[in-house]
């Protein structure tokens, strides 16, 4: 069975990264969701981000 069909046969469990309203809506529907308080890696600093990739 393909992974997508497997998904269709399982309970949907969502990780939401970004807009809080999307997780709020899922919670309203009593769906399983974890909201990630997402921020850009190293606050968006490209130099630090590149260093982190190497460490």
């Amino acid at each position: 069975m393909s992974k997508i069909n497997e998904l269709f046969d399982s309970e949907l469990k969502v990780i939401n990264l970004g807009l809080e309203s999307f997780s709020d809506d899922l919670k309203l529907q009593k769906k399983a969701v974890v909201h990630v308080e997402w921020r850009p890696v190293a606050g968006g600093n490209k130099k630090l981000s590149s260093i982190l990739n190497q460490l």
Partner: protein
Amino acid sequence: MGLKSYVKKNAYYDSVVLMQVTKELKKSEDINEVIVGMGTALNKELAGNLGLLTDEVKATTQNDFFVSLDGEDTVDMDEVLNKITELLNKKKTSGDEDYRPATLKSALKVMPEANLALFSIPGEYAYEEVKKALDENLHVMLFSDNVTMDEEKKLKDYAKEKGLLMMGPDCGTAIINHTPLAFANVIKPGNIGIVGAAGTGTQEVSVLIDKFGGGTSQVIGTGGRDLKEQIGGTMMLMGFEALEADDETEVIVLISKPPHESIAKKILERVKECKKPVVVDFIGGDTEMIKSYGAHACISLEDAAQKAVALAKGNTPEDFTGFSMDEGAVDEMVEKEVQKYRNTQKYVRGLYTGGTLADEAMMVLTESLKAVYSNKPKSPEFKLEDVFKSRENTIIDLGEDEFTLGKPHPMIDPSARVERMKQEGSDENVAVVLMDMVLGYGSHEDPAGEMIESVKEAKDSMASKGGHLTVVASVCGTEGDPQDLKATEQKLKDAGVILMPSNAQAVKFVDKIMKRIS
């Protein structure tokens, strides 16, 4: 007059929440101008433009939160800040003080059985973050846009390799296992599966399926560029194959703007092999080609829904070209409107929040009207010089970038359309205003309520000049949606809006009016 600012270091709030807070604060009379946001380059520029860039705000980083405002001397900064804190905390669902992990990795520690990641982060970071999710064998829905075509291809190819859903970028609508994700409606469960590359088109079709007594099994989004040559329809094909293998699905509907010819062929070749009936709506595309591959072609989104439901019930699908009500009755309605126009009134203005719905309107109206201006016209000669000013016959997609810079999408925040409605209403050459009203998760909690004041104002304005403004709308929503469908429809009717059962019918109705005027 006083310019005041406040900075809170290392506090992060998403952009939509901040924009809504700004809007709320602007309601206060003592505050002339306010900007609330994270210390991004864009926000600092916006602050600068508003004359609100203090040194304190200038020194903020992307990780810091700031408020800058210009108000009367009577403005009590502490009070403003209390108000803001109140508003920001109100955004949290009650009882939800659960710990929020900071990364995908730590989220997986909290929920190791997660199977789908929904991303709505700034596009420039999307590629790296989405790749991490695919690495972890999560299916992905990517709402963000501003992802390059190259990045999209890489992600979709990687997802294909792994057999995972990669819905997006720019995918606003999906319903997986009967769960609306991002901007989607609550549709009755059924046996019709949809793969859509057009957000509001998918919403309209799914809503109408529900309306016509059918239901959906799965609604898979692919993002707007999936059927471009460079991407090759990867996700549409994967979605299609999954629906083919899905026991719950008995009819498959594919929705997209007309794809590149080679891609259309690729998709249709695959469709040909399918034993289940397939409805293909390449909105405005070559219907003969579709029929030649044994699929059912469509002349509108409504027609696609009608055909799908017919097939789902085991009936023969027929073209739905007309109106739900008796055509005679429709013509009477047209007459009634036209009688009241002043002879200066000759144009239609379409104010749309849904891109595909705007496209459908343009498709139908350009057949009769030829010259239909837009911010995204069918031919470049009809591109509006100033998208904030309509010209002759104009259809506007208010969800496009030019209107959403620094502002939430009009489906979330109707105020952009409210302003535009007032503008159109004061133009004595306008006869008809046409609009969509999209409900469902993701949309504003009462889009109709937000619009009716400006509708009444516009109508009154035209009436005071001895004319009559026709306002036509369709509501893209179901009984199951979080907004109250009946109340929405009633509000609009009470404000004098002519409600049609679908966007296609609303446009056709307007088309009749325009033909009568000329």
